[in-house]
């Protein structure tokens, strides 16, 4: 009765084909930059690299959950700027840090509820909905700050950003903890199962008696809340809040998720792949910095890397289909 062993059931793939293109790119880049400038692997630069990666990680990890549900959140960059401005403005006005962060979380909650409600209950396209909240967030940030940077608030945020524990920058530890937490949620709780189900077969989730729309909305809320918290990292980095400093960060966050091998369809994806995607983008920008390449060319290179990674993965998938057929 045991003729259905895993061997006969599985469509096997060779191990090397399962290594995502991003890993190959990452290894190649590290080698290239290390040879190009030995300073790339210095302790200082690695700490710097970790700091740069930690903010992107805070955005890209929840973005992974959203893309797993076959959705998208374009509002994260603008929302990050808005929350930064809210915290800074309240601190300058004399409120405590707790009140300021609470207000930023409330803003995140509202934007997340708008995104989630419209996408799940009303089945509006996530691309358009979050494009709308992108505009709203950016507009609010400009209105609150009158378009000017806000500075001169409590130095404790910058102190936190610059602090280290066991020689590791605290933001890196925070981002790592956040990553562990999301990993537990995604792979060890029913909420995590439902995220895969939302992207893979929402009807199945509904038929299983789960409040699929509620779960769907919760994913967007989770994303916006973590964006609100990430505003602290943004403020720490620049020690000022600029309304449009984070505009465009949604590009890097989405690019990191896609680089990591998460698909926009069927709920196929990998949380740790996103970590690799974040590292690839950060290493590229950092390395180009070390090699003194202009910032505008850096963005170009990130876009180029995204397409190259997709081509690598597609090319190898094509081989697989050829071998099977």
């Amino acid at each position, binding site marked *: 009765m045991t003729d259905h062993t895993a061997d006969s*059931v*599985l469509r096997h793939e060779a191990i090397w084909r399962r290594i995502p293109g991003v890993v190959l790119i990452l290894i190649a880049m590290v080698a290239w930059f290390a040879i190009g400038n030995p300073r790339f692997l210095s302790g200082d630069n690695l700490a710097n690299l970790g700091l740069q990666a930690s903010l992107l990680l805070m955005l890209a990890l929840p973005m992974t959950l959203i893309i797993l549900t076959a959705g998208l959140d374009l509002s994260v960059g603008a929302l990050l700027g808005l929350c930064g401005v809210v915290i800074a403005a309240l601190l300058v006005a004399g409120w405590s840090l707790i009140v300021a962060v609470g207000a930023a979380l409330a803003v995140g909650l509202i934007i997340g509820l708008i995104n989630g409600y419209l996408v799940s209950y009303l089945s509006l396209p996530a691309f358009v909905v979050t494009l709308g909240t992108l505009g709203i967030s950016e507009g609010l940030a400009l209105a609150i700050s009158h378009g000017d940077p806000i500075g001169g608030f409590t130095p404790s945020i910058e102190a936190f950003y610059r602090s280290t524990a066991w020689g590791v920058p605290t933001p890196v530890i925070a981002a790592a903890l956040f990553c562990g937490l999301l990993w*537990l949620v995604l792979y060890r709780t029913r909420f995590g199962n439902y995220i895969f*189900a939302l992207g893979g*077969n929402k009807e199945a989730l509904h038929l*299983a008696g789960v409040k699929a729309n509620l779960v769907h909305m919760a994913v967007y809320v989770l994303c916006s809340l973590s964006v609100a918290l990430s505003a602290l990292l943004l403020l720490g980095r620049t020690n000022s809040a600029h309304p449009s400093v984070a505009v465009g960060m949604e590009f890097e966050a989405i690019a990191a998720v896609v680089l990591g091998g998460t698909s926009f369809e069927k*709920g196929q994806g990998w949380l740790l792949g996103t970590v690799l995607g974040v590292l690839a983008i950060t290493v590229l920008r950092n390395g180009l910095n070390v090699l003194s390449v202009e910032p505008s060319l850096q963005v170009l290179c990130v876009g180029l890397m995204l397409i190259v990674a997709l081509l690598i993965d597609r090319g190898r998938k094509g081989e697989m289909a050829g071998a099977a057929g």
Partner: protein
Amino acid sequence: MTMGPAPAIDGRQAAPLLRLSNIKKSFPGVDALKSVSFEIRAEEVHVILGQNGAGKSSLIKVLCGAYLADGGEMEVEGRPVAIRGPADANALGIAVIYQEFSLVPYLDIAQNIFLGREGAFSKAGFIDKAAMHAAAREVLQQLGLAYDTNTYVHDLGVAHQQMVEIAKALSQNARILVMDEPTAAISERESDRLFEVIARLKQRGVAIVYISHRMKEIMALGDRITVMRDGAVVGSFLRGEATSGELVRLMIGRSLDGMTRRAPANAGACVLSADNLRTAKLQDISLDVRAGEVVGLAGLVGSGRTEVVRAIFGVDPLAGGHIHLNGAPFTLRPDASIRAGIALLPEDRKRQGLALPLTVGDNTVAASLWRLFRYFRFIPTTARQVCDDLIARLNIATRGPGQQVHDLSGGNQQKIVLGKWLAAGARLFLLDEPTRGVDVGAKAEIYRLIDGLAKDGAAVLVISSEFPELVHLCDRAYVMRDYAIVGHLDHGDLSEKAILDLAVHP
């Protein structure tokens, strides 16, 4: 015998486990269920038989809470109940094995089996994976399966996915288990195992609702058989009360009373000849159609008829075989097919055959635009003329070329699809269910049109599920079953019974 309360056939059948009375469900433009009444009893396999679109799936969706009925009552063990959603159905012990799999590709087998019921394995908010996988293995064991429960469902073949779907329903300890064509995708050996499981479940007192159009299974499994057609129950039988022939006739339905058979044509040269066509699904299809001939492609829904015309038209890629058009080898691509004079009337007229929001005029020239351009300039007067000619020739009831196709009746829409291809100068017509969803009058008119096409020397291949229609219309017919041609009937041999005998599983 004395008169008294209606006698039960035997003791246990006195109280149905579930009774549906006068269930109605309509969608815009369709009455999916027209007052359906239905009873399910414990320890019984109740088969529902019907063509696609007969209302079987709608009935099941009402039963499992996926659709809310527009009217009617439901009772469980004599108590009135309301099923407002899947959770209500689960609570009543109703589980469904869906035809379209309700599985999540990137969750593993255990996660899929217990989707929505993870609470049973929850420890402080986290899922106890070991317990969940052990429970999943236990359920699979009942089916005689030893899958690695860590496998993603995406990595399983269709047959194995079906078995997981069955395991998922089994794990719910359902009192009423609904199986929607469970054997459609699995091998005979796996089917046998499924039948063993069904027998075991019956002994445990589970009521089973079983949907299939495989007659062999139905006759073997069904304790009670209900036949549905066009959203209504047209007959209900206990085991042995009806032969498979009677059941199929009831399922397929109306005969074309009072219509005389079309006179056979004088066939001309061979227009289409297909040799050993193979695609992902089709096996070695060989057929030919001559000028002036109407040839039928008969078979039940899902026997592969549509796939044949799609392959000929060049929509689906060929894995092997050759097609000759007017004696010359032919490259298969939709644009080449159109220029070579092949016309395809798709099964789904509204989606694949017409651009509904566009006008009558736009639609009639859609396949012949290349004729209406001269030196990159569109010639509107020619287009207008083409359209006016067709409206007159096909007797299309429309206000004029400017009317939206959306507003026309089904029969007139179908005439426009035909007209589109006439305008393109087609000489070979592939007609997939040309009379589906049109009324009797329009039907007769479409028959006349097809007859006219053949008289003009065109070659016509007609697919239909209505066997009387094929007998009426065709000079000869090929019969399909399981994606292969299983027989050929000449004009003299062509009868409903002959088609049935070939089309239905022995």
